[in-house]
């Protein structure tokens, strides 16, 4: 297939934005010259977007402004923040009207608390990791229960019950060095020991939810 002669792709660029806050172009020119004098090389041929929102709806001669900037070897790409009338003027001058992209509010990544237990969990004991993962350095005995809203990692044998994704997290997993569980459950889907024996090929395993059913993968531990 021949290569198409053109392609349309979206990209984003970082542009300098020049804010015009004064209707009086002579004052603008004076201040601009002062700025350019500080770093003339930096501004030569620099693409600029002119932001007119600082004018608060006051009129300005866009053609004169364009002339003012191009004469100082600045390249105007377009205008932004302009009123309807100013937008029309810009259009007449062959300038694009650009909308500033909305800055997405920065949300801190959701950090889950990991509960670490450095001992064997004995029969009759219950450990619950609320809103997070559970890591156990030791074995979980028959008749013991380990529960987490997130995933469960057991560096030892799992002989009791393990319930991951107790709050409904379907991405939770159960990992154990030796899978001999009485029951494993992720987000409510469960296997009893006999199901587990059918599915668990090796000794170590990772159990997760795929669709509506649990699957187990052996681990190269």
């Amino acid at each position, binding site marked *: 297939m021949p290569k198409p002669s053109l392609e349309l792709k979206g990209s984003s660029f970082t542009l300098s934005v020049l804010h015009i806050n004064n209707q009086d172009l002579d004052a603008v020119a004076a201040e601009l010259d002062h700025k350019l004098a500080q770093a003339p090389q930096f501004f030569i041929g620099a693409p600029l977007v002119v932001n007119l929102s600082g004018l608060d709806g006051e009129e300005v001669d866009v053609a004169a402004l364009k002339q003012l900037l191009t004469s100082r070897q600045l390249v105007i790409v377009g205008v932004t923040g302009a009123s309807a009338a100013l937008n029309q003027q810009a259009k007449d001058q062959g300038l694009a009207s650009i909308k500033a992209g909305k800055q997405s509010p920065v949300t801190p990544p959701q950090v889950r608390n990991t509960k670490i237990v450095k*001992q*064997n*969990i*004995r*029969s*009759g*004991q219950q450990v619950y990791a609320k809103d997070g993962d559970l890591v156990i350095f*030791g*074995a979980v*005995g*028959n*008749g*013991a229960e380990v529960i987490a809203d997130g995933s469960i990692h057991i560096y030892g044998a799992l*002989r009791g019950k393990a319930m991951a994704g107790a709050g409904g997290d379907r991405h939770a997993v159960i990992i154990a060095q030796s899978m001999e569980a009485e029951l494993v459950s992720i987000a409510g889907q469960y296997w009893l020991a006999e199901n587990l024996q059918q599915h668990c090929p090796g000794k170590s395993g990772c159990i997760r939810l795929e669709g509506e059913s649990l699957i187990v993968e052996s681990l190269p531990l």
Partner: protein
Amino acid sequence: MAQIIVVTSGKGGVGKTTSSAAIATGLALQGHKTVVIDFDIGLRNLDLIMGCERRVVYDFVNVINGEANLNQALIKDKRCEKLFVLPASQTRDKDALTKEGVGRVLDDLAKEFDYILCDSPAGIEQGAMMALYFADIAIVTTNPEVSSVRDSDRILGMLQSKSRRAEQNLEPIKEYLLLTRYSPTRVKSGEMLSVEDVSEILAIPLLGVIPESQSVLKASNSGVPVIIDQESDAGLAYSDTVARLLGEDLPVRFITEEKKGFLQRIFGS
């Protein structure tokens, strides 16, 4: 500083009282002043095994309630002068054991004795909880079968969460496994769990393995702790256990099947 040792198991009939009597006697024979306390209030057995049931006048509950002082209730063993027994009450129940009362009696005993053995009742109720609450060392007595192992695991959980050391965030109780009624023949035929199986599941250091032996029943019935019988495998195994408790490093005996001799094979054993 006296060491408080609890002999516990969760399950009944695994040999807690037999082991308590044997280990207490063993410690005393090694020259340590030892007292063994029967926590099985209402089902008093230790005095029978120790052969001192006819000398019980006052008991543990009497001391807790202030009806008798310790010296009146302690029974001195006839065979070993460093050994004392504090018998249980046969007419009360386990609720007579209060944390304050038991703590006070143990504090008083700690002033005089090197080792205080607490013979726990079966179960996980008040009696068993009080027996393990103040312990420094726990000897978890287990038979090589699944229900006993499961119950021992449960008791280990209790030791780690319900004891004084756990509640006060002190150094945890030292836990040891004592495997009793072990029969190498039945292990070999797959009827019993092996030492390795039990050790792997419970994951605590092995203190000793006591072979299944006729001599245990004989010793119990005659009121002589089996450790006195140094002719028997069980007696020797308890001696080894006591030595390990005192810090000796000994190999485990009696865990492999005895090879039958030529004549035995012909005539049967």
